[in-house]
């Protein structure tokens, strides 16, 4: 009988999403590459300092640029964009969005999009801290 394992203790208490007092969001923005410096400057102004940047390809309504190779036009290529990922506590969501718009907006097609996702958890690898303390 002793061979039976004790009942699983379960992971150390992580509050479920609905139990939390501070919620977290993941803000993903797709912007024009040449606007990256402006957006970064605005984010620093808004005290948002932790961002991940990657170079991506894609297109929305703006149907690609025209590039010319030795006289042959190539249209409809996927466009280069910059993808920003910013994890923030709820109270930073609005300032982050405002900063991105302020930096990236030109008013022309192709300015990009911002997606806001609920963020289940965040763990700082160095310290094992979890949740909203780990985010900043």
């Amino acid at each position, binding site marked *: 009988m002793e061979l039976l394992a004790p009942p699983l203790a379960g992971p150390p208490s992580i509050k479920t999403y609905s139990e939390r007092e501070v919620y977290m969001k993941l803000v993903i923005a797709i912007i024009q*590459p*040449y*606007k990256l*410096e402006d957006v*970064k*400057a605005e984010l620093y102004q808004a005290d948002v300092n932790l961002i991940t940047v990657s*170079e*991506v*390809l894609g297109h929305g309504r703006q149907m690609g*640029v*025209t*590039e*010319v*190779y030795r006289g042959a036009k190539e249209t409809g290529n*996927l466009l*280069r964009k910059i993808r920003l990922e910013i994890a923030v506590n709820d109270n930073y969501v609005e300032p982050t969005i405002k900063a991105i718009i302020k930096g990236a907006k030109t008013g022309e097609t192709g300015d990009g999009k911002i997606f806001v996702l609920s963020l289940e958890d965040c763990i700082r690898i160095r310290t094992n801290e979890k949740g909203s303390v780990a985010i900043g």
Partner: protein
Amino acid sequence: MKKLRHVLFGALVALAGILGLSATSFAQEAAAAPVVNAGDTAWVLICSALVLLMTPGLAFFYGGMVRKKNILGILMQCFIIICLISVQWVLFGYSLSFAPGDGFWGGLKWIGLNGVGLEPYTDYAGTIPHQAFMIFQAMFAIITPALIIGAFAERMKFSSFVIFILLWATFVYAPVCHWVWGVGGFLRKMGALDFAGGTVVHINAGIAALVTALVIGKRKNLEHNMPAPHNLPFIVLGAALLWFGWFGFNAGSSLAANGLAVNAFVVTNTAAAAAGLSWALIEWFKNGKPTMFGTASGAVAGLVAITPAAGFVSVVPAVIIGMLVSVFCFIAVTVIKPRFGYDDSLDAFGVHCVGGIWGALATGLFASKAVNPAGADGLFFGNPKQFMIQLAAVAVTIVYSFIVTFVIYKVVDLLMGMRVGEKEELMGLDLTQHHERAYTVIE
């Protein structure tokens, strides 16, 4: 215009006079009977090809330093200069530079290579066809404006660039080239020594670089983000091609396959090596680690510095010239440039002008008739006057190139606008000026 030219020219001659010089006759070696020598001709043609290769080499040297959105802009600027100046040179550039004209420039006597044939022209080179000398010099005329690109990289409009370069080659390069190397040129008559173009090529282009960097202004967003070179291996490839081509530049400038060419070859290699070593050591002591970028830059600085001296100094002075040029250029690019805040993006001024000035003055220190009887002794060989002559030639070139480059820039800027728009600059010159990209992302 003509009057203005004469006034300006008079002022420059006066400047040379103030520096304590009287015209001394240049001991031009009387050439033997004009018979074409097969070995000499083969050597000069090979060297011409070597010097041509320096410009694509420079394109990679500079191209590796810019951000990846601008590399085609650099390659294209270098390549179009090869195309543009090759044509300009045979149509009128060579005539303006080398035809026996007045003290200022050569005039239009040899327009379209009229009278520039396959017989030797003994005032320049007694044993090779005149056209061999012409095509060798064409390669110098090509690389000189290409050197300036480093100063205004990543922000000049391509159409304006083409016009600017054409005017610069015609109104700055041609006269300065004539003064130093052309029959009747006043610096040549004065006895200024410039074996392979320290004054004509490097100081001239280096000063033009400083002027354009000052006038065009800084690149955008430098305060947040000092751009890192996007491809260091390209920089090394470019430096290696420059080193290789420079043997043609310097050893070819003897215009014959002879002992002088060998001397130039040996001191060129020595100075480049000493300068690369020196730069690496400076970084090692100062920053803790020697860098590839620094060592490659040092080698190029060494090549610049030995250029005017290659046919006049022996090997130990070459080591000294190489070792010290890295010190001067290192100070120029890491102390002086940040202090004054001009955006000489790829250090065209810091390496070519500073290195060129040191080389021209070092020629006045270390030149020896034991190396080249047609040259002169320098300060350390008992002839302080030669140092003053070198100083005067440097000063005259700096003043002229500074003023005329500024005027040309302003004229083209007024007519066409020199700088790309802010959005174009941020998007990069490859896409906005040429509708191409150097690299793909996924495929």
